[in-house]
């Protein structure tokens, strides 16, 4: 074999690629290699899927065959569907219970475990523990806890003289019943975020306020809460997104009943998509839910940004 064959010049294009620069810096292609294992599945199973979902929302499609373009028909149908306002209202009501309640409980937990005392570490673990349990398990356990006649919750309320509450069998109570399970499940995660925020607050600020004669409540009101605003914003944003997408707890605990009083938007989308195989309409409803989440989240973030404590 000749020397010339052994030492073939590198292809020009490859050499250019190797020496390519961006804003004066040489591009390190190995970085892209490292993100590829994440990016490819993300592209395939998220970005393309989302794009396809958006396309399907303008079509009529029942899994078999090609989608048929129907323009805005699915969105018009949603506006005329009497069930749509019902499930949106249910979801918003559920959010109005869960978001403030979880925020308050999580903040209380965080303030409690942020103190220096012998049981703080144990308390953190205990408060966080429900969050590591699968939501399916949470749902099944709470169905038992909230049973009208045999549930522990009603039994304890009975000791206080409160009559049995039909937590999961009465339309007026069912969202509160499901919310109890959700708050118990979710408060631990939000507590961790608050705890991180609390530990970022300089100790000197509290001490200075106390030296100036501020009570513990005043320190909380004027020092802690304003400085917790970023954590608060994050917690509320995550909770809003979570509650608007609520599915598993409801599916397991009530399947949307009784009398559709706990049917959330996602439960309805699931029924339309996977029971009736009306994927075009289900995709349109999903797109509407996405818009709702976006609007609510943006409004919430703006409100928190301008809010003065």
């Amino acid at each position, binding site marked *: 074999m000749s020397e010339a064959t052994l030492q073939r010049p590198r292809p020009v294009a490859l050499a250019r690629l190797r020496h390519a620069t961006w804003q004066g810096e040489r591009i390190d292609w*190995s970085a892209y290699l490292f993100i590829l294992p994440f990016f490819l599945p993300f592209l395939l199973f998220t970005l393309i899927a989302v794009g396809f979902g958006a396309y399907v929302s303008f079509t009529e499609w029942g899994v078999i065959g090609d989608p048929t373009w129907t323009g805005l028909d699915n969105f018009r149908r949603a506006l005329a569907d009497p069930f749509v306002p019902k499930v949106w209202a249910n979801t918003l009501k559920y959010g109005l219970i869960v978001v403030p309640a979880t925020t308050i409980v999580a903040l209380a937990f965080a303030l409690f475990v942020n103190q220096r005392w012998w049981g703080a570490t144990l308390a953190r673990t205990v408060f966080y523990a429900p969050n590591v349990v699968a939501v399916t398990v949470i749902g099944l356990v709470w169905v038992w806890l909230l049973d009208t*006649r045999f549930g522990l919750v009603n039994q304890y309320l009975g000791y206080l003289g409160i009559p049995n509450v039909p937590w999961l*069998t009465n339309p007026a109570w069912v969202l509160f019943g499901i919310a109890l399970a959700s708050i118990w499940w979710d408060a631990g995660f939000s507590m961790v975020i608050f705890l991180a925020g609390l530990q970022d607050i300089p100790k000197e600020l509290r001490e200075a306020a106390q030296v100036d004669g501020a009570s513990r409540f005043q320190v909380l009101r004027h020092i802690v809460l304003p400085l917790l605003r970023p954590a608060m914003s994050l917690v509320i944003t995550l909770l809003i997104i979570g509650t608007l997408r609520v599915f598993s707890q409801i599916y397991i605990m009530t399947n949307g*009943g*009784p*009398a*559709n*009083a706990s049917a959330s938007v996602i439960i309805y989308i699931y029924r339309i998509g*996977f*029971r009736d195989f009306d994927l075009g309409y289900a995709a349109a409803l999903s797109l509407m839910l996405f818009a709702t989440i976006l609007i609510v989240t943006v409004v919430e973030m703006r409100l928190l940004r301008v809010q003065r404590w």
Partner: protein
Amino acid sequence: MASKVTRRNALKLAGAGAASGILANSGINGVTAKPLPARQDVHEIVHWSWLTASDGEVWQQMIDAFNEAHADQGVQIRMEVVPDDQYGTKVLSSAAAGQAPDFGWGTAGLRADWIDKDVVLPLDELMSAAELDLADFMEHALQSSRYPTYGDMLYMIPMDAMSLQVLLNLDHAAEAGLDPSSPPQTGAELLDWAEQMTVRDGDTVTRSGFLMTGAGVQPSVTWGIVAHQMGFRRAGDDLTEAALNPEAGQAAAQWVLDLFDEHRVATRDVTDRYQAFGTGQGAMFLTGPWTLAGYVADGLNFTSFKMPQVGEDASTYFELGGLEMYAQEDESRYEMTAQAIKWLSDNSFLWTTEGRGAAVRQSILDRDDYQTSGVPWDLRAAFVEGMSEAVIGEVPVKAAPDFTIYTGSGFVAQTMDPVWANERPIDEAVQMLAEQWEADLAEG
């Protein structure tokens, strides 16, 4: 000498390793991969089932028996259990991908939409070629497996017929001094028995004389049965008119509501009906034969009797389970699958005595040991003998699920649940049903 492992070297090594792996496996690099052991020439039939309770265990025995009988004949069934709430989605998706199972479990009257999509196959010719004796089947079962709007072709081989009848807790009956050998025959007698077996604590019903749930399947199907008995029809025989005799539908809804509020023999507080009856929270329970084996295994002291005549007749809910074949790219698979279905049908004695509903083959019903095998006859009798009154089946149109009365979250339940919660007037709900059903029938 220790050499520094740079990022470039590490990448080169990883690349070289991966390349040699690929080459080794493809045999290009002079290293041929070790040949796999030769596959035996076994034709594998893929079967999907959504049976998961005690009936699922019996069905597994049926499949095992087939495989054992065909161990030397080059054909085996591979059964995969798919949860029933995912079954439709998965069959349609797999069919769209050309990977549908060969056959699966179906329910008569619910497949018009799939027929329209060419997912399920007409079976008349295939079963004729497989020499399945269709003359041995009960005529009603075969007719229910046909679709009038699709050439009246047979799209399912029925395996067992089910009806809803009433289970009675014998301990509760004895406690109330009732004679189980003379069960209630009319609506008035049913209410009387329910009243006598109901236990209340103040205003609260702690044991339902007639077990219901506050929403979902139980009130929906009870309403559907009573409404039919009173003369209501979801669709006319020619499938052109919907909600015939709506006044009867309204009267039936009132009858169900009265169980909760007027007679107070049922409570809305029950969520899990099967568990509630099994744990003594109800004295009488309208249900299907699929619950029998489980309650027998649990040692529950109970019996069954036929659904009483609340209205003009004693009709009850009818459900026909069977096997359906799905379209394949490789049509040569059909013959073996049809043969397998023939074998399972011919050998469905176990299935129809221990597994689930009544036999649909005359040759099985005529067997001397049909009544003495499997679940005790005094429990099964109502479900077998009551088949003559089981006429409230599915409406075989594309939107059949909208007409289903045995549903916890379908259209009927969605519409009627607010009625049971006193949140929607009865006439408004029946009107909503009528409007949707008319639209569904118009679609065909």
